[in-house]
């Protein structure tokens, strides 16, 4: 069958499903009610495959592929749940928890955090890696929001929401590897940056790294569901 055919058929977790050319494995899986854990992916934003939580096995390949950016092909056989995948996902989560200072009990997002929820879903009971306990700054200079780099997992949702949806591109990433950090403008204080104060970055942040000062204390639910709707309305115009 040639690649020009629009409809592809493939197997995900033993189930025969059909997809359109160019769709990602994640999209097709979710359309068919098959759950794949994600962290950096968010409906309404482009995908970057940064967190590797959505890794899946493809028959015939030794490599694990991130389902959010891997597109389907005809006859593909995908496995989304296996012991090997479970091991990798848990290790990734453990590394995320060990990398910075995630103290759920005193976090504004306690109970509303995607990292915490994933840890619970994946049965994470303890971290086998030594904690790095880095000394990271908190930028509270913005009149409405705070960024606490201790809780940032570098998913870059804020960067994408600011650039792709708000069109401001205030957020970006500075540094490399483990020393990466999200910055506003050219690493100026958030409060004196060109931020438009729209708050989309806060709503899409999966953890308590970005939060609203008016929701001080604990109990800070985020509502990122507006993104697909916003995109839809813009396309309709």
């Amino acid at each position: 069958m040639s690649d020009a055919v629009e409809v592809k058929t493939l197997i995900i977790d033993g189930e025969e499903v059909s997809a359109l050319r160019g769709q990602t494995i994640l999209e097709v899986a979710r359309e068919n009610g098959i759950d794949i854990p994600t962290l950096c992916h968010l409906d309404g934003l482009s995908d970057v495959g940064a967190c590797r939580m959505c890794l899946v096995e493809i028959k015939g390949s030794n490599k694990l592929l991130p389902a959010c950016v891997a597109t389907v092909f005809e006859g593909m056989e995908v496995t989304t749940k296996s012991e090997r995948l479970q091991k990798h996902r848990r290790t990734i989560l453990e590394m995320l928890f060990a990398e910075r200072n995630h103290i759920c009990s005193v976090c504004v997002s306690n109970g509303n955090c995607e990292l915490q929820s994933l840890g619970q879903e994946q049965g994470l009971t303890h971290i086998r890696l030594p904690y790095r306990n880095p000394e990271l700054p908190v930028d509270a200079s913005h009149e409405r929001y705070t960024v606490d780099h201790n809780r940032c997992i570098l998913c870059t949702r804020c960067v994408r929401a600011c650039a792709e949806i708000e069109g401001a591109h205030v957020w970006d990433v500075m540094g490399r590897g483990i020393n990466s950090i999200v910055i506003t403008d050219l690493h100026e204080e958030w409060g004196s940056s060109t931020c438009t104060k729209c708050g989309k970055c806060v709503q899409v942040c999966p953890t308590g790294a970005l939060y609203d000062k008016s929701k001080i204390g604990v109990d800070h639910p985020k509502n990122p569901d507006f993104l697909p709707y916003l995109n839809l309305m813009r396309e309709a115009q």
Partner: protein
Amino acid sequence: MSQTITIDPVTRLEGHGKVTIQLNDQGEVTDAHFHVTQVRGFERFSEGRPFYEMPSLMARICGICPVSHLIASAKACEAIMSVRIPHTAAQLRRMLNLAQMVQSHALSFFYLSSPDLILGMEADPKVRNILGVAAAKPELGRAGIGLRRFGQHIIELLGNKRIHPGWVVPGGVTEPLAQAKRDEILAMIPEAYANLGLGIGWYKQVAENFKPEIDVFANFPSLYMGLINEDESIEFTDGALRLIDAQGNTIDEGITASKYNEVIGEAVEPYSYTKFAYYKPLGYPDGSYRVGPLARLNIVKSMGTPKAEKELAEFKQLANGPVESSFYYHHARLVEMLYGIEKIEQILSDPLILDKHVRATAGVNRLEGSGQAEAPRGTLNHHYRVDENGKMTWANLVIATGQNNNAMNKGVAQAAKHYIKDGKFSEGILNRVEAVVRTFDPCLSCSTHAYGQMPLILTLVSSQGEVVDQVVRG
């Protein structure tokens, strides 16, 4: 030959502590100390955090009285924000604080101290615990558990969690009270009265059997401090502090949270991680005072609720002037629990209690703020400094146990000197020394929140009990 007796750990306390008793060659007690042996570091690691995180962070100091820390901390934050919280929020917080007082007092009286009172100071240590109480006096055991549940369940209904509720925030509380929850609390009140009635009735019957203990359980004149309303009635959440002398005369009053830091100092002794608070104009140790249930009842002129008012009148009959024996902390605790239940009932009948406006918002308007409240075991003060973005630069907490520290040490020495003669002592005697500390219901985990190089004393004792060497750091 001189000897050191060490009671380690002191049991049925909240936290880790030990007692050492020094004997001279004649076997007489020369000195005794109560040591708090753990260290925490909250004041240090709060630096750099946004101030509005402080209530939930500081609440983690303690699992028994997180609410006191939540409230004192939120009030310090509100001083930084310069806001006055809505009436309903203030009332809801007051109810939360009282619920915690009831559950903590129930824990102290029924779980930790009633084994000594019911089974006797000399009873077999294997059964001298809450299970022993439940076996010997099941109805009393049930009443204690019921009162603790009453307090904890109210905290859960208001704050969605029994321990460390996140409901108290700078500016008020996160959500208003639902009618169904109000009705559920009201429905629990009759049982709470019944349970408490059982406790008070029983305590009064047996208290006179403890005359020898009453005489030597930290029974000495001292100053007393606690929160009080303008009408001289008892207060746990708002009001200002009053300090009275051993005769009951007011030395200082109208001590607000910000004035507190001007008049109260903290001294350090080499044998404990807990500091020793004192009233600065009188210096240390003359300015040492007692806080907590006994101090509060000594200070106030009324309770402001009818049932507790009668009990207060009876309590005041115990002495001509302030009641001095710390044994009466138990009695005062029961009176306060009764007040707590009555006051909760009163607050729930406030027509505005279901109002939806429960939170004020503001940014950083001042760079320094203090807040104070009465924890079950005494006055608690949080003092913060922040930068212009609201990040903490400095914190100081003065905890009830630090304010009772001098009295606890003196009390331990008083009891030890009375009971230990010719170097002879039994388990029951040592239990009495521990029981002195228990009357204060100290919270040791709260008391060692400080940071820095802690003074430490290391005593080396030979197998014959001889002090061979001593190293002092600090």
